């Protein structure tokens, strides 16, 4: 008698785990899965809850500075290196992987105002309140040797900030004037001046590398081209801008951190209205830095919190704070899009995860697919009220909450007032003004 039977090679059906999971042939007929919607919804809900459970963004604290941290310098090539400058003129180089300070030396008298790495990452430049630009080797000196700058440039003007060109050997400083320097020369190649106000921050466009922008103390943002003899354009906002960051993926967009608790994203080609006003901070925004993907940016504020924004949305997606963190002065997004660094008044540098609930360490492929699935589910059901509520709930410090309440009250009051005025005045006399247009005073040519 001949017996016929189906035989299957178990190698094709057994997963390579110690648990010997058999691969189950599935029938995907939707009629057989009547509850697929509800099941996915529950999965999404659980994923959201887990996301909040695992949302522990704080990675570590780097302590060592003896005064408030003033500025950061990101190494363009090494992810584990970060340079920080403090109010007492001390510069520290950190090994982030091991969470230790590799070098520390006093670079300037008074504040260290800015740190910028050279293009190849072998040198870095610091500027301080003592009107000097100092060039340092990125490599630590040998044992027994003293920390000495490779070069010290005495500037004729006060210096407030420095930024290095990404593609050539020039860098720019700001202060009384905007000066373009060459690495080989001790005198600026060019000084660009518009008005008499102090320029307190400068930033090179990372994509279109000839373009740079400054923020001035007359509440203006000034655009420069390093090849031109004249500045390009000036736009004046209602309050002073503290920092400026260019979008590394979109050459024409930049964001400024403003004193009026908001951030403004501009398109360089259309400066009379910002593309987006980013709200949510309750005190002056001190620093802003873009993620290297250009999709998000992080902002530091005087209200002792940091917030993460989508570049095209006006409200933050996350807020980071700890009890001990005081006014956050500077912030940086690591170049692998994973971490955020914050330097604050109380002398500490902190490291955070850019994605609060992301798992650190090795992620196996199956884990990865599961995370992807959870992420997709969360996105799919994002508008459902329960999921939205859980995903967007944050505990914030009491002072932030109170300030927010107060701000909301003020805003409501103003709205009511405006509405009343409108109601009692001639039609069309009190126009509706777009929120975006309220903050730009004028554009100077």
């Amino acid at each position: 008698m001949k017996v016929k039977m189906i035989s299957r090679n178990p190698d094709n059906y057994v997963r390579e785990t110690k648990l010997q999971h058999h691969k189950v042939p599935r029938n995907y007929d939707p009629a057989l899965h009547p509850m697929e919607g509800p099941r996915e919804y529950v999965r999404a809900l659980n994923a959201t809850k887990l996301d909040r459970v695992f949302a522990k963004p704080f990675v570590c604290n780097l302590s060592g500075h003896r005064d408030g941290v003033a500025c950061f310098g990101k190494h363009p090539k090494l992810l584990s290196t970060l340079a920080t400058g403090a109010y007492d003129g001390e510069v520290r180089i950190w090994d982030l992987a091991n969470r230790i300070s590799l070098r520390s030396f006093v670079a300037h008298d008074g504040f260290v105002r800015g740190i910028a790495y050279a293009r190849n990452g072998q040198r870095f430049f610091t500027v301080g309140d003592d009107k000097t630009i100092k060039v340092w080797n990125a490599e630590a000196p040998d044992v027994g040797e003293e920390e000495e700058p490779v070069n010290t440039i005495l500037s004729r003007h006060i210096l407030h900030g420095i930024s290095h060109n990404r593609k050539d050997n020039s860098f720019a400083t700001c202060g009384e004037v905007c000066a373009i320097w060459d690495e080989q020369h001790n005198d600026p190649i060019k000084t660009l001046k518009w008005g008499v106000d102090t320029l307190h921050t400068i930033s090179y466009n990372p994509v279109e590398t000839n373009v740079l922008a400054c923020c001035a103390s007359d509440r203006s943002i000034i655009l420069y081209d390093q090849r031109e003899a004249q500045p390009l354009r000036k736009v004046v906002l209602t309050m002073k801008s503290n920092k400026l960051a260019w979008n590394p993926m979109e050459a024409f967009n930049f964001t400024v951190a403003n004193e009026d608790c908001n951030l403004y994203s501009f398109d360089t080609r259309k400066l009379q209205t910002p593309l987006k006003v980013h709200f949510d901070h309750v005190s002056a925004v001190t620093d802003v830095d873009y993620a290297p993907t250009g999709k998000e940016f992080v902002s530091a504020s005087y209200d002792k919190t940091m917030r993460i924004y989508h570049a095209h949305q006006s409200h933050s997606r996350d807020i980071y704070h700890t009890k001990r963190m005081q006014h956050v002065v500077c912030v940086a997004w690591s170049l692998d899009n994973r971490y955020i660094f914050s330097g604050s008044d109380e002398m500490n540098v902190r490291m955070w995860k850019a994605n609060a609930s992301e798992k650190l360490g090795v992620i196996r492929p199956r884990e990865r697919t599961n995370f992807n699935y959870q992420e997709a589910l969360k996105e799919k059901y994002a508008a459902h009220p329960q999921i939205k509520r859980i995903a967007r709930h944050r505990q914030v410090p009491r002072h932030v909450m109170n300030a927010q309440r107060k701000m909301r009250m003020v805003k409501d009051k103003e709205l009511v007032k405006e509405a009343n005025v409108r109601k009692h005045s001639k039609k069309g006399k009190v126009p509706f003004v777009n929120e975006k247009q309220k903050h730009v005073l004028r554009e100077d040519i």
Partner: protein
Amino acid sequence: MSDDDEQYNSTAHKKLLQAISNLGNVQHIRKSTRDERQPQQDEFQLFKSAKTTQHATKAVGVNDLVQILRSSKHIETGKKLKNVHSTKKVLEKPLEKPAADRIKRTIGYEGVKKKLGRWDAVVAKQRSAETQIFPIPSETIYINTAAHAKALRTSIKSELGKELEASNKKLRELRKAQIGDDTDEQALAKRESELIQKKLTRDELYARRRELAYLKMRESQKSAKARMQNKIKSKKYHKLQKRQKILEQMKEFEVLQKTNPQAALEKLNALEKSRVLERASLRHKNTGTWAKNLQVRAKYDKDVRKDLAEQLAVSRQLTEKKVDSDSEDEQQRARQMETNEQESYDPFNPWTKSKTAVKDEPQAEGGDSNWRKYWIERNENEKLLAEHSAEMEAAQLEKKQIKKAAKEPTKKKKKPKVVVENGWVVEEVDEAPVKAKTLDDIFDAQDENIYDKISQKLVKLRKQAEMLKQPTKKSKKLKQKRDELKNLKDLTFKKTKQRVEIDEPLNQEEVTSKPAVEGVNDLSKLEEEKKLEVEPTEIDPNKVATITWKQTVRSSDAMNNALVDDDAAEYDEADAAAERQLTISEAFEDDDIIADFNKDKTNDSEVKNTELQLAMPGWGSWAGAGISQKVMERRNKRLLLKLAAPEKRRDDNKDNLYINETSNKQARTHRVSSIPFPFKSLADYEASIRAPIGRNFVPETAFRMLTRPAVITRKGQVIDPMDESELVKPNRRLRHVVDKRIRRQEQADQAKLPKVAK
């Protein structure tokens, strides 16, 4: 006197004279020019004439030079110089510094804007990309070849080696001579050296080799295919292939007809010739061996008979002389009209009413009510109107055709007939004539339509061109106002996969979100309004539409076709008609909505009203019969399950209200109350969340595709900012399976799109 003479100071005298002469002079203030140096610049760019300011000797002017030249032999040069002097304007003084700076700044800014504008396309693409991978993958790989280059070996060959080489060479030649190989070794060597001289890079060499390999592979594939095809003996296959070829030719011909009529004519001739040839030959006459063999079997086999008949039909088709297709069309149309007229109708049914054209005159005009009169009048009016409009249309059509210079006879539109039968008035709606139209008519109409549109567009374009020609001041103003980000906006694609964007402040405190509640109210209000609007049309209070169907229907109409797919139906016509009738009556069965509504309301409570007897026969009576009735009753009472008293419905006293009490209150908090941001319609949003994405519900590859994250980054890799090479980079070659699949899908979608648009 001599003393006086001595005292005479010539310079002082001159001064005096000049002062006197200047007394009557006006001060000439001119615009300053660049012809002389001036120690001081006036802020208004003006200066007094040299006479007044400079009492010293005048500077040498060009005129003096000319004078001198005139007197000498260089008269020509003098003339030229004078000409030059008179024609050329002296440059104006440069602008004031602030103004000049402003201009410079504007120019610089424009330049930067232009430069930044280059990135529009790249940024738009990045933004709309479903998945972005960082660092942006680059195609170029840099290899330091110098580091791995081997040192040249320049050792001197030994004597022995040289001798060996020479003998080897001789040996090879001998062997070659033996085989009869006559390839020129030297030529090969030469080519090789040439190639080396060309210095192909490694990549180029690889590319060339790959290309060659690919070509070879293709060649071999093609030859293999041809061989295989030649081997195929199936007649059917060859027949099909031939048919396909003919079809292709026809297609080509059609294309040619539009593009190149000359070539098309030739092609037509060729086609005709082939037809003639085939006609001349005795093919398809069932005289071949194949047919003869089959004829034997034809007696017993139905299929064979069919094949033979087909063959004969082909031959008939081939040998047939071409007849004017127009007359045939006419006949067909006539036939169709007849069938249309035969159609039955139902006066109450809006579907059938709108479709049928009925012929008889009103029979019982005497016994009609007022409304019938009205209808008749109305019909007559409409008849007149229709006639008039038909005439107008015909006239228009003629005009158009004259324009087109097409020689086809104009087809007059048929007047919509309004005929009455059985005392029922039926008005014909536009759809009926559309149905009666032949394909040609439709195409003609389409052609006309297109022609009209094109001509309109041309007129528009011409106007625009004229507008452009006139350099008006308005256009300048417009230019200033132009949107700088227009290019970027134009370039942005609509995202294929829309996702919810929640741009709200993080909720730090549990505040009942007021706007959301308002939204809900709005939504419900909207729905209510909709209902209000819809209801009166749907529910006919007089229940006009609820009618029993007794008349038989003989033939189909368009609506029935839509309701029932009669292609699939295999039973006979009458059955099908009955079925269709049923579907229509079914469609109107629910028209008594009010009654249904009330019934629905009572349904729930009915279920709750019942009592359940739980006693089973035999249970509790183990001892057999004879148990007292009392005990039995008591027991039965115990086992009678009384359901709870029917709850009072919340909408009990409200006739027009139905509150769904089965809906879950707990589930309500999980429901979305308003359409989230980027979506514009409920249908869109529902579509976006309807399909499952889990691997339990969709196949693995689909799961991977659906759960692809929007941003992929790699650990420990620095993400560099956008590079200029992105501007000129071709599409990335995809390695990942999912990527490839997505790309393919996109391409397929794109291929589909234009068809849909048509």
